[in-house]
């Protein structure tokens, strides 16, 4: 009767920011990004992409609790970069990778349907 709506798991409530950024107060070039209504799908690809960046000293994510529908991505970089720059770069690189993957799959699909 008082069960929350199922869509609360993946729809960002009004007035809540999708991504919020919080600088680390003690370590320079370290920050946490709180991403609302996302899970391991986004968290893990971001983390792995960040690990490919040599300016990233640490990148990790956590899903604090299964009933809190958010992830926290923590990034620590060298002085050559910044958490925000590394984050943006990771998102851009993943986006381009998926573009490439889509083209590769469509090309294979065209090749495959021609053979029949």
């Amino acid at each position, binding site marked *: 009767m008082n069960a929350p709506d*199922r869509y609360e798991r*993946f729809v960002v409530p009004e007035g809540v920011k999708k*991504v919020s*950024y919080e600088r680390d107060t003690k370590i320079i070039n370290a920050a946490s990004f709180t991403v609302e209504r996302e899970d391991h799908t*986004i968290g893990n690809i971001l983390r792995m992409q960040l690990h490919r960046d040599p300016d990233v000293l640490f990148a990790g994510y956590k899903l604090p609790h299964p009933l809190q529908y958010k992830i926290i991505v923590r990034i620590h970089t060298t002085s050559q970069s910044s958490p925000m720059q590394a984050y*943006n*770069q990771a*998102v851009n690189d993943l986006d381009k990778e998926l573009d490439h993957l889509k083209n590769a*799959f469509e090309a294979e699909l065209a090749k495959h349907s021609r053979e029949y």
Partner: protein
Amino acid sequence: MEGASHQRFPTVKIRELKDDYAKFELRDTDASIANALRRVMIAEVPTIAIDLVEIEVNSSVLNDEFIAHRLGLIPLTSERAMSMRFSRDCDACDGDGQCEYCSVEFHLRAKCLNDQTLDVTTRDLMSSDPSVVPVDFADSSSGFDNPENRGIIIVKLRRGQELRLRAIARKGIGKDHAKWSPAATVTFMYEPEIHINDDMLETLAIEDRISLAESSPTKVYDYDPITNRVVVVDPEAYTYDDEVIKKCESLKVPGLIEIHPKEDSFIFTVESTGAIKASQLVLNAIDILKQKLDAVRLSEDTVEADDQFGELGAHMRGG
């Protein structure tokens, strides 16, 4: 300041393709991308499924909610789903979920008039949209052919029993309710790299070589009686069960066979419920994943807020 790109360029090779089945190789990427694709295919690619049922008459043996639940689970052809609206953010009907942009209406009327049991099936569901109808397994290429195809049975009626209802189908995703998942199964495995040390194999007796080849529960190896060697016939049949590794140890030749999963190569199997084609399911999953990435980009005001904070910080440090 723009950083250097660390983008990858994945490659794809399709091995087998049917309407509701696809098998392909994905290379030059990592497990996080493979797993994200798998997760999106199962839980975030939208389809259309019955979500609201108004029962007018139901004198069947099944109660109303039982029938409503069954109707929800019927796969509907969902090519339209990607361009449809979710009813919760449809402004044409104020989230009522009753307009043509976000819903499809179905009617079902059935009554048994004689002593023969009447099967009420998905063929009795009348759709308001010819592109959104119950999946018909008869015309798929899956070899599910059945000359007397009668659809999926919903309920059986005896003489005098009747079922009359109106149903609204809406767009949704598997994360909301599994009835919206377009995927029957989506799996991927690492491609194994199997090395057999022939010098060590020489030290084994013939019967030990045969028993080594037979120690794998799946047919990965074969014993070649001409060369007296153990050969790999099907590396992908390996289920990472470690049986041959243990056998090597028990034969006192540890390391004779070494198996390494190739960390950047995956073999995907995708089975669809029939709501969308397996190939389309993969393409839609890539699109959805791209949309999700786009949604997690930093907004202008977040960047600005930090710039100000940065200046303030620099000012404070400077002062």
